[in-house]
C-alpha cells in the first residue's frame, strides 16, 4: 500500500511488474532451497548442496560429493524440500483463489471442507491400521476424503442455492464441524495411544520423510492445476466488482467460479494428502502478497504461489532445526507465525476498510 505500489500500479505495465516480482521470487526460492537444504543432522557445504541439487535435477555441473552428502541431499532433503515448496505453493494459490472467488478475506483453502475431508481420510487410515500396510495408504485416503468432502459441499450448495457462494460457505462450515466431531470421537474412542498420537500429529501437518514418490505423485496435479488457475486472474479481478458487473463485461461468472473452486480444491486436496493440515499459509500469504503487489489477481495469484513455496520451505527448515533432534510440526510453526501476522493484517484492514 506504499507510495511505491501506487506509482508502480499506475505507471508500470503489468508485464514488467509481473516479470520483476516473479524474477525476484524465483531467485529467492532457489536460494532458500539451497540454504535450507544444507543444514540438518549432517551439515553439507552450500556449494556441495547446490551441485548435488543441480546434478539430481539433470544439470551436470559442480563437483562430486561424498556418498553420505549425496544420499542425504538427494534422497532425503531434496524430495522433502520439493514437497514443501509444492505444498506451500498449492496452499497459497488455493488461498488466494478462494479469497478472490468468495470475496472474503477470511477464506482459506479449507473453507469448502477440503482439509477437514483430508483429515477424515487420514484418521480412517490411521485408526484402522491401514497406514502400516503401505506408506501411501494415508495420503491416498486423505486425498479421497478431501475430494469427498468438497463434493458433499458442492451437492449441499447446489441443492438449495439462492446465493450459492453463501450456501457453499455455510455447507463448508457444517461439513467441517461434522468431520471435527467424527475426528474427536475417533480420538476419544481409540484406546491405541499410538493411533491417537498419529492422528494429532497428522492434524498439525508434517513434511518429514517425504520421498521422490510423494513428489512425483503431487507434482503433476499441482503444476497443471496451478497453471490453469493462473489463467483466471483477470476474471477474478472483474468478479471483485460484483457478479452482475463481471457478467456484463463478458465473464461467465458461474463457470469460472466452478472451474476455479474445483482446481483450488484439487491442489489443496493433493497438498493435504501428503502434508497433513498446515494452516495459515493459504490464509496469510495472499494478504502478504497484496501488501506488496496490490490487489490485481494477475499478480496476486502467481506471486502467492511462489511466496507460499518460499515460506513453507523456511517453515519446514525451522521445523527440522528448532528443536533438534526432535522435529517440531511444521503446522505449528506456520500457525505460530501466521496467526499474529494475520491479527496485524486484520487490525490494518479495520482501519482501511477493505481487503488491503
Amino acid at each position, binding site marked *: 500500500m506504499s507510495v511505491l505500489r501506487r506509482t508502480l500500479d499506475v505507471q508500470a505495465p503489468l508485464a514488467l511488474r509481473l516479470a520483476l516480482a516473479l524474477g525476484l521470487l524465483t531467485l529467492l526460492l532457489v536460494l532458500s532451497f539451497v540454504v535450507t537444504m544444507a543444514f*540438518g*543432522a*549432517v551439515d553439507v557445504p552450500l556449494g556441495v548442496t547446490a551441485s548435488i541439487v543441480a546434478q539430481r535435477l539433470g544439470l551436470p555441473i559442480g563437483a562430486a560429493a561424498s*556418498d*553420505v552428502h549425496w*544420499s*542425504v541431499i*538427494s*534422497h*532425503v*532433503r531434496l*524430495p522433502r524440500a520439493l514437497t514443501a515448496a509444492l505444498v506451500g505453493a498449492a496452499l497459497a494459490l488455493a488461498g488466494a483463489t478462494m479469497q478472490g472467488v468468495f470475496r472474503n478475506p477470511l477464506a482459506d483453502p479449507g473453507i469448502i471442507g477440503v482439509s477437514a475431508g483430508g483429515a477424515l481420510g487420514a484418521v480412517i487410515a490411521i485408526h484402522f491400521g491401514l*497406514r*502400516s500396510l*503401505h*506408506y501411501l495408504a494415508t495420503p491416498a485416503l486423505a486425498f479421497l476424503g478431501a475430494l469427498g468432502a468438497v463434493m458433499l459441499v458442492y451437492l449441499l450448495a447446489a441443492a438449495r442455492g439462492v446465493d450459492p457462494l453463501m450456501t457453499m460457505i455455510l455447507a463448508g462450515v457444517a461439513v467441517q464441524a461434522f468431520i471435527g466431531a467424527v475426528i474427536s470421537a475417533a480420538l476419544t474412542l481409540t*484406546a*491405541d*495411544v*499410538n493411533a491417537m*498420537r498419529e492422528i494429532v500429529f497428522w492434524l498439525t501437518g508434517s513434511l*518429514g*520423510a*517425504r*520421498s*521422490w*514418490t510423494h513428489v512425483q505423485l503431487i507434482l503433476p496435479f499441482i503444476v497443471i492445476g496451478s497453471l490453469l488457475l493462473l489463467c483466471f486472474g483477470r476474471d477474478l479481478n472483474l468478479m471483485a466488482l460484483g457478479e452482475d458487473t463481471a457478467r456484463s463485461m463478458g465473464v461467465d461468472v458461474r463457470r469460472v467460479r466452478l472451474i476455479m473452486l474445483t482446481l483450488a480444491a484439487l491442489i489443496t486436496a493433493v497438498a493435504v494428502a501428503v502434508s497433513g493440515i498446515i494452516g495459515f499459509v493459504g490464509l496469510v500469504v495472499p494478504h502478504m502478497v497484496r501488501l506488496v503487489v496490490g490487489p490485481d489477481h494477475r499478480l496476486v495469484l502467481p506471486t502467492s504461489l511462489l511466496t507460499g513455496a518460499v515460506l513453507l520451505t523456511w517453515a519446514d527448515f525451522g521445523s527440522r532445526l528448532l528443536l533438534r*533432534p*526432535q*522435529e517440531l510440526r511444521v503446522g505449528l510453526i506456520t500457525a505460530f507465525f501466521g496467526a499474529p501476522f494475520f491479527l496485524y493484517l486484520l487490525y490494518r484492514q479495520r482501519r482501511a476498510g477493505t481487503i488491503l
Partner: protein
Amino acid sequence: MYSSRRTRRSLISLLLGLAALLAGCAVQPAAAPETKEAAPAATAAAPADSQGFPRTITDGSGHAVTIAHKPQRIVSLTLATDEILLSLVDTTRVRAVTYLAADSLWTNVSEQAKQVAHTVQSDPEQIIALEPDLVLAATYNDPAHLKLLRDAGVPVVVVSLFDSVAQVADNIRFVARLTGDEARAEELIAAMAKRLARIEAQVAKAEVKPRVLFYTAFGSSAGPGSTFSDIVRRAGGVNLGDEALDGPFGEISLEKIVELNPDVIITDEFAPEDNAEWRETFANHPALANVNAKRNGRIHTVPARHLSTLSHYIVAGVYDVARLLHPELVP
C-alpha cells in the same frame, strides 16, 4: 498393552510435557527386584564367522534384502532389537541404538548401550549419515521413513515383532542370521529355554492359579494376544484381561476391576517419578476395599523393562511375575 513397546514410547512422548510440569512430584523408591539371575551374559564376543555372505533375506514387510558382508555398522531402531543386538554382537559393531536404550527403566542393556557411539530416533538423515550396513526396524516404524532409507540404498530389515515368549527365539535367530552370529544366538536361546523350564517346573506344583490383572495409569489393561498374557500363563496365573478385553490392550473401568475381583493386581511402572503418586492413590481407592488383591496386600509393580521387553529378557518378566504369584514355590 505389552504387545507393543512402541505404545510405551508414545506414552512417554505424550507425557513428556506433563512430566516437566509434574517434576516436583515424589520420587518413586524404585523397588527393583533382584535381576542378576535374569540377565544372561551380555557382550560375549561374537564368533568371527563371515561365511555365508552375501545373504538375501525376506524381511517382515516382504522386502528381499541382500546383506553383502557380515555387518559391522548396525543401526537399531527398536528397543527389542537393541536388546537382542547388544546380547548378540560386540558393541563395536553397533553404530547406533534407540535413544531410550541407555535408560535402565526401559532396557535391560542400558550399560552396554552407553558404549554405543550414537543414539537415533528415526530421522532418516541422521541414519544415512551414520553410513550403516544394516538397519533393524520394526513393523511399527514409519513406513515413509523406511522407504526413504531404502531409496538411499541403506539395507533396512523389518523385524516382525511378536506377542508371545515362544516367538522371541525366532526373532533372535532372525537377527542372528542378519548379523552372522548364529552360534551365539543358539546359546542365548538355550539359556532362555533352560530358565523358562525351571520356572515353569516350579509353578507347576501350585494348586491354584491366581487371577491376575494388569492395570495402567491410563485405565487400560493387557488382554489376549499380549505378551503380558503369555507371561502370566507361564508364571502360573490366569490373566483376567483375557476375558475382560477383546484385544491385546484396552480400557477397563474401576467398576470392572471390582467385578473381576483379581487376586493380584500388577500396576504400571513406566516412569516411576511420574506415576508413583498414581499407584499410591489407586492402591488406596475405596472401591477396591473388597477386592482380593487389596485385602491380601497383593497390588504390586514389576520393572517395566522386564514386562515390556520383546527380547530374551522377557524371561525376567516371567520370573518376576512367578515370584509374585507363587512366592512359596519360586525362590
